[in-house]
């Protein structure tokens, strides 16, 4: 797809627009026949969106840009850390997506020219688009936590992007002596997977209780409240009495800096030297979003909740963890739900019509132990430029229910992972 082709096509669209407007017909049909949509990021958001676009309108030329040949899923990766699951069970390829007619460009997107509507790739070539969907996930803000950088992460893993980091944290737990101290440092909102750190605490505690029962786990938190808090705290008391200590922001939980040489986490109230330190740093939208001009001063991407179009970069749509989605949490379910609604909106816009306001759902399961699950759910609709909870809907699992209820939710959690990964990659 060369530059000449792109230029001639754009001139052509311009000429067509004038003619069609004069005739009071919508522009689109012609654009639809050959419209090019590029999707950047092959996670739950991007891969879902590429597939959904092709399903809605097979004529679209859809290209998915993703440098990794294998996707490693974050949901359920806490089970890998706890030794309950292999990393291979978290891994998926793009062959089926390609077989469905999506062109998979196995390269990193290096730059976006929003005016010229092109995406530069690592090999020096570029892709032209009519509409671009960004699903770049999060970047870790190493600069935001003094002492923490990529080298420090090899000693104090974040394990907040699944893969080598997940295995590193697992190995450190295996190598730790019984009686050791594990510390998890949790950032302020917003960050990927709000209940994730607390589920991780549960599943690490499950491993410790089973294999190293004299050990302790401290959560140093930059917040005073957290997702599914009552359910987690009840589970800690019920399943792991005396093992997990949560230190909130007001109790001095915010980690101000770390010292990887001594595995020490420093707060206003004192130092914690851990045998295993899991440092989850603050985050922002994946860097390519900034190249597109789609991030604001928070580091995240403001969008129109009907079309997912960036508020600052026209023809660029942002979904998943990178977008500012109001009440919707940064989860795989949210990303998948947004991806399908975004695909509908993009196809509708290309067809020259006005997209209908979407209604979105999120359901996030957490496991406190094998066979012990609970959830938070929500239904969302656009309101004041963001996604707002539909009042009266959603919420967390009930607090006082028999263990059978938790067992069923654990089953549904497993089923959810199998289903969503089959929809996206299978």
């Amino acid at each position, binding site marked *: 797809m060369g530059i000449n082709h792109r230029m001639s096509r754009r001139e*052509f669209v311009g*000429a*067509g627009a004038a*003619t*069609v407007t004069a*005739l009071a*017909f*919508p*522009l689109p*049909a*012609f*654009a*639809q*026949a050959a419209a090019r949509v590029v999707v950047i990021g092959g996670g739950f958001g991007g891969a879902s969106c590429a597939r*959904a676009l092709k*399903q*809605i*309108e097979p004529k679209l030329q859809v290209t998915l840009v993703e440098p990794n040949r294998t996707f490693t899923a974050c949901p359920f990766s806490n089970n890998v850390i706890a030794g309950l699951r292999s990393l291979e069970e978290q891994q998926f390829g793009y062959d089926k997506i390609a077989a469905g007619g999506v062109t998979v460009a196995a390269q990193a997107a290096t730059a976006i020219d929003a005016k010229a509507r092109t995406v530069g790739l690592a090999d020096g070539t570029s892709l032209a688009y009519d509409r671009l969907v960004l699903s770049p996930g999060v970047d870790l803000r190493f600069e935001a936590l003094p002492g923490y950088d990529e080298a420090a992460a090899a000693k104090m893993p974040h394990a907040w992007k699944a893969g080598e980091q997940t295995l590193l944290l697992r190995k450190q737990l295996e190598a730790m002596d019984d009686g050791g101290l594990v510390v998890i440092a949790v950032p302020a909102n917003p960050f990927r997977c709000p209940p994730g750190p607390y589920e991780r605490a549960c599943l690490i505690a499950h491993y410790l209780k089973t294999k190293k029962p004299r050990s302790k786990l401290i959560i140093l938190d930059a917040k005073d409240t957290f997702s599914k808090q009552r359910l987690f705290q009840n589970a800690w008391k019920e399943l792991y009495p005396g093992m997990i200590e949560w230190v909130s922001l007001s109790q001095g939980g915010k980690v101000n800096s770390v010292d990887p040489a001594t595995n020490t986490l420093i707060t206003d109230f004192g130092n914690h030297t851990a045998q295993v330190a899991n440092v989850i740093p603050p985050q922002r939208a994946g860097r390519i979003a900034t190249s597109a001009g789609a991030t604001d001063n928070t580091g995240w991407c403001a969008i129109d909740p009907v079309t997912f179009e960036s508020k600052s970069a026209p023809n660029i749509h942002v979904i998943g963890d990178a977008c500012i989605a109001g009440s919707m949490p940064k989860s795989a*379910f949210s990303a*998948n*739900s947004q991806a*399908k*609604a975004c695909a*509908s909106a993009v*196809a*509708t816009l290309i*067809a*020259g*019509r006005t997209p*209908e*306001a*979407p*209604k*979105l*759902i999120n*359901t996030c399961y957490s496991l406190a132990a094998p066979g012990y699950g609970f*959830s938070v*759910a*929500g*239904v969302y*609709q656009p309101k004041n430029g963001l996604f707002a909870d*539909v009042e*009266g*809907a*959603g*919420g967390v*699992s009930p607090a006082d229910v028999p263990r059978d*209820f938790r067992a*069923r*939710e654990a*089953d*549904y959690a497993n*089923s*959810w992972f*199998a*289903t*969503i990964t*089959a*929809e996206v990659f*299978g």
Partner: protein
Amino acid sequence: MKAFCVAIGIATAVAWSSPLLAASIPPPGAAACSGCHAAGTVPASPVSRLYGRDAGDIMTAMTGFRDGSLPATVMTRIAKGFSDDELRAIAAWLAAQK
């Protein structure tokens, strides 16, 4: 050449493009179901597949979840987010999927 192509575009829009696209866009909320309720077949899932199911049955279940007469773990919370009209449109779309 340009005029010729534009003419084809208009003809295409009128002839087939509009109905095709309209039919394939799910009503608000419907696409989210397949996050848990498999669109394809997932072996041994405890969560029921909804594609091709009777629209009336889906509607009965959803209104039952919504008013609490049908117990569930999470669907009671999700069903409360939808009006009758929205549920009818979602049920009809799900029923029409293969």
